[in-house]
């Protein structure tokens, strides 16, 4: 119940800010009769109204994860991957990320390492060699 209320408030706030921001838009020259503002402003206000509806009649709560730590750890691993992909290269970054994800899904260390390396090599071969789509090489001499 409380989660619906919080999300409702967030949607209302976002909707109002978005509507206000859309109203501020100015067109440098006289263009079409619609202009850039009315459509996004209307949609944002409808979203704020939906948020109000959720605040007034909340239904659902936030279902608590069975494993509390896993989702944030996965997000951290993915962000690290996104930041390291270009400097380290696709192969190393993917191997690291896939290993961490396999561990998070409950694999043993050695098995996770095998999964990580196999995934990275297989995808590299698929993209770079078979499909001819270049991925960042990074520090490996490929």
């Amino acid at each position, binding site marked *: 119940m409380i989660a619906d209320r919080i999300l409702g408030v967030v949607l209302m706030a976002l909707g109002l800010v978005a509507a206000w921001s859309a109203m501020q838009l100015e067109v440098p020259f006289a263009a079409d009769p619609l202009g*850039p503002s009315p*459509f996004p402003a209307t949609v944002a206000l*409808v979203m704020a109204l939906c948020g109000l509806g959720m605040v007034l009649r909340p239904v659902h709560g936030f279902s608590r994860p069975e494993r509390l730590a896993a989702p944030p750890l996965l997000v951290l691993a*993915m962000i690290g991957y996104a930041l390291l*992909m270009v400097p380290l290269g696709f192969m190393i970054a993917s191997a690291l990320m896939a290993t961490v994800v396999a561990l*998070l899904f409950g694999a043993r260390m050695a098995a996770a390492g095998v999964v990580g390396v196999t995934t990275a090599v297989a995808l590299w071969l698929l993209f770079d060699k078979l499909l001819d789509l270049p991925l960042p090489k990074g520090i490996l001499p490929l």
Partner: protein
Amino acid sequence: MDVFAALGGGFGVALQPGNLLLAFIGCIVGTAIGVLPGIGPLNAIALLLPFCLALRLPPESALILLAAVYYGSGYGGRITAILLNMPGEPSAVLTTLDGHPLAKQGRGGAALAISGIGSFVGATLSVVAMTFLSVPLAKVAVAFSPADYVALIAFALSLLGAVSDGPAVKAWAAGCVGLLLAMVGVDSGTGVERFTLGSLELLGGIDFTVLAIGLFAIGEILLLIETKLRAEAAKLGGGEKLSLREVIHCVPTMLRATGIGFVIGVLPGAGASVASALSYTAEKRLNEAHGKFGQGDMRGVAAPETADNAAQIGNLVPMLSLGIPGSGTTAVLLGALLMYNITPGPLLFEQRPDVAWGLIASMYIGNAMLLLLNLPLVGIFARLLTVPAWVLYPGVLALSFAGVYAASNSAFDLLLAIGFGVLGWLFRKMEIPLVPIVLGFVLGRMLEDNLRRAMSLSDGDVWALLGSPVSIVLWVMTLAAVAWPMLRGLRRVAQPSRGV
């Protein structure tokens, strides 16, 4: 006959060796992802889309591949439903009711066979209906003015609330999120930057693949990782084979289910889940006296699986003929066509007959392939379930990121996809549906462009939006679709004891 000549041309496209191969790959991928819990057609198409773009597949080939994944998934969802009592797709929930009891009685193989035949009958008859209906429907839509289109899109969006399982405000809020995300970037009409937060990367707007992969592939893995996966070994059961008499016994059921499924599918908003539920209920009521529904009736397996596939094909009709997708997955297919600068809609059949008819022809071929694939090879697909999560999902995740990167070459898009993944996960946890976000995103630009055109034609007179009988009818229906969930909510307040 025009239709036959056009369909012949379509077969010319679909029978090219490359396209045949793509349809075959799509059918295998589709069945496989239908089997795997947690990966649906939507995620798979979102994952394949960057490949199609990066490989510069022509639009008709890309569509043949992606559509085969889409209708192929309708064949896969039943396998887990029957063997493990665990629907691989939401629309296979009803299949568990009779399918799993049959498997327990040792007739899992027979249940799989009848559901495969049902899927084929439903899909193929619906493709026939689509062949004859698409062009007439498109001809009606050619006469639509921009104002009529505004009303049609508003109607499609308003239906999201009426057909959603949860509270309507949540579906509408999600639709608004999608519409606003579509506004990010430089406005095509006026050249003004909107909602870019000063970011250069967002000037060109949000890439459709980034949104779809983030929300569905990454979000789904976040959802999977927080629970411990429990899968039991799959057993096919060596009992009695399906007899011809049993198949014939199911034919009337299949025909009725095809009708229900196709009609539900063509209507915007309602999808395969509604169709399979309706047709199961209908068969159960019709055959109450001499059936054993719920304890393992063949017709109880045939009905939902036939309707499911018929509805999937039906969903494609408004997408191709009107340019209005009826479901999340067809919205992704529409997004794919838009990335190729092809606008589905009334003119598609005239301007790009190779795309429209090539797709329709390929669906005849694809469904035949699926029937052949699914009857003898069902055991191989069932074995996919024994792949442990820690092998499968790291690969899916790495594939998602590689796809995003190959399509955009930007690390920023990777971070954006992660952001959408977290958003999708949070929304799923709060029971906010994600499909309206994709629909809103795809329809957003279209809605504003048509609104802009309508306003230009009328010189800014808002009443022009109600200028034609078509638009008035559609707006009345929109109002009804908005009012219906509200009335439903009020009634629930008035009779709290009956609350569901």
